[in-house]
């Protein structure tokens, strides 16, 4: 079965190629990017690269339709990031192809594409099968990108018409470099914090424990009290520290799925019926404004700083 891999970076393409490593068949790549350097890195993975040279999703979709017609793949794979999801949902609609996201495992058997994916805000795993041609988007950062072997050719594809939806401006987001994925201890802050300044309590606690501060989606994405690289959950980052302390976080499934790899989860919440207590190892029913200063003082005393 021929497989078409779509991605915005050579790294993402490497992850998708790794997700399908046990499936036989030719591979071709479509890179959705305006970077020629990225195109040559992608070609170093060893397969032919169609370079969709645009940043517009509508234009990329139209170019991808041409690649699809030229190659007739039985399977299209990408990492589940936003622009590929946009482009591939359009292709799926045009051709009535099945499409699944959050895929963790792919195989082919009896002419069907068989895959496992997380559903229900990652409370469940769904084992599914689809008729080829099918589109599967794999979970980001789950597969280790394959190492390059050889040199594929690059075919440049430029949009032939002006798309109806035009990009007027691109604004880069400010990221904080919190590196919560690597920290041994993460203090997670939620909407239980009333003011941005109060996050100081979390930073002080994290520092005393040698850890980093992350937050729930409303804190990072909506209120923007933390940069988005500190966003924990299914639509943010997945972390697996030795200790995760959730402070003023209710415990929504979309948040908890991002911390399920933690060794120990501690929850601090003033509402004793908050769902987070069901998903924690240790819970304390307390007002964060009362308990955090006490914990900070006691930790300082232990370190002889008090």
């Amino acid at each position, binding site marked *: 079965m021929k497989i078409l891999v779509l991605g915005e970076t050579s790294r993402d393409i490497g992850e998708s190629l790794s997700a399908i490593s046990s499936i036989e068949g030719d591979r071709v790549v479509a890179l959705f990017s305006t970077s020629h350097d990225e195109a040559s890195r992608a070609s170093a993975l060893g397969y032919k690269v169609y370079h969709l040279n645009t940043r517009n999703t509508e234009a990329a979709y139209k170019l991808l339709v041409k690649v699809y017609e030229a190659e007739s793949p039985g399977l299209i794979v990408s990492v589940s990031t*936003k622009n590929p*999801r946009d482009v591939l949902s359009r292709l799926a609609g045009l051709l009535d192809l099945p499409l699944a996201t959050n895929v963790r495992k792919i195989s082919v058997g009896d002419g069907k594409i068989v895959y496992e994916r997380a559903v229900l805000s990652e409370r469940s795993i769904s*084992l*599914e*099968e689809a008729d080829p041609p099918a589109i599967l988007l794999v979970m980001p950062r789950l597969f280790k990108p394959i190492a390059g072997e050889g040199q594929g050719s690059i075919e440049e594809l430029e949009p032939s018409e002006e798309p109806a939806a035009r990009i*007027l401006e691109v604004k880069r987001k400010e990221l904080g470099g919190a590196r919560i994925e690597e920290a041994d201890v993460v203090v997670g802050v939620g909407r239980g914090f009333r003011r941005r300044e109060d996050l100081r309590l979390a930073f002080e606690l994290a520092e005393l424990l040698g850890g980093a501060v992350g937050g729930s989606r409303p804190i990072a994405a909506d209120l923007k009290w933390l940069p988005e690289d500190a966003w924990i959950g*299914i639509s943010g980052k997945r972390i697996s520290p030795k200790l995760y302390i959730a402070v003023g976080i209710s415990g929504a499934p979309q948040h908890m799925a991002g911390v399920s790899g933690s060794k120990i989860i501690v929850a601090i919440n003033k509402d004793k019926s908050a769902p987070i207590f069901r998903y924690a190892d240790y*819970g304390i029913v307390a007002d964060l404004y009362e308990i955090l200063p006490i914990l900070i003082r006691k930790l300082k005393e232990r370190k002889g700083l008090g």
Partner: protein
Amino acid sequence: MGDLVVLVKAALNPELVRSSDGDRLDLDSVPLKLSDIDRNAVEEAARLKSILGGKLYSITVLTWGPASLREKDLRLAVQEALAKGVDEAIVVADDSAVPGDQVLTANIIVGAIKSLGLKPDIIIAAEESIDEGTGQIPGRVASKLGFPYVSFVRKIDVSDGKIIVERDLEEVVEVVEAPLPAVVSVTQEINDPRPPTLIQIRRASKKPIRTLKLSDLNVEPVRKRAIRELRIIKEERKGVVIEAESVDKAADRLLEILESEGILK
């Protein structure tokens, strides 16, 4: 002046997944609720209606059956959308469309728009649902109708026949201009929807709900994927709530635990 359409899903509630037999999900026992970000979509659609005028329709396709068991959950989800500003709800509840298949769902939505003669200026939907979470329906609908599509939108401005939106991507925000009619998917951050008031709920009960079958729409029940099995992910956690006579004592207890777990030295 055209209409507005908002796509509304009655989704499986992930907070209430249950199993009666090991880790197999007992699908029929999981209740449905209005999918979280659909609230944001309805709120935004109502705001756009206040600017653009026209009539606001919702379209709901039942994707979890059996239809007879889902009537109440489905009605509650649709009524919440009606309470928050939808003028007329279109519901397709048909056992030949469950469990849902996104190829079919998109065909049903487009079939409903065409056969009811709706002329939407904007079709608005959530970035993804809380159950399947694929976010593919708005993109499918856009390419079937040949409309421009802007996804993951956290801000919409309307001005003379076009929209200017902010697409919220992983590393950048893209400002995009699109002509109408268009399909828009919105993120949870686009607004802060409030629950409907009692008066809104009462008014909603008088609004029309039109229930349709596939045969009314001339849509074939095609199916391109099958769910073989659904398993619950079991989270093994200790679930100990530290009881102490004071917050100070509770803090001591927590530090002792962290020490015995080898985290504090």
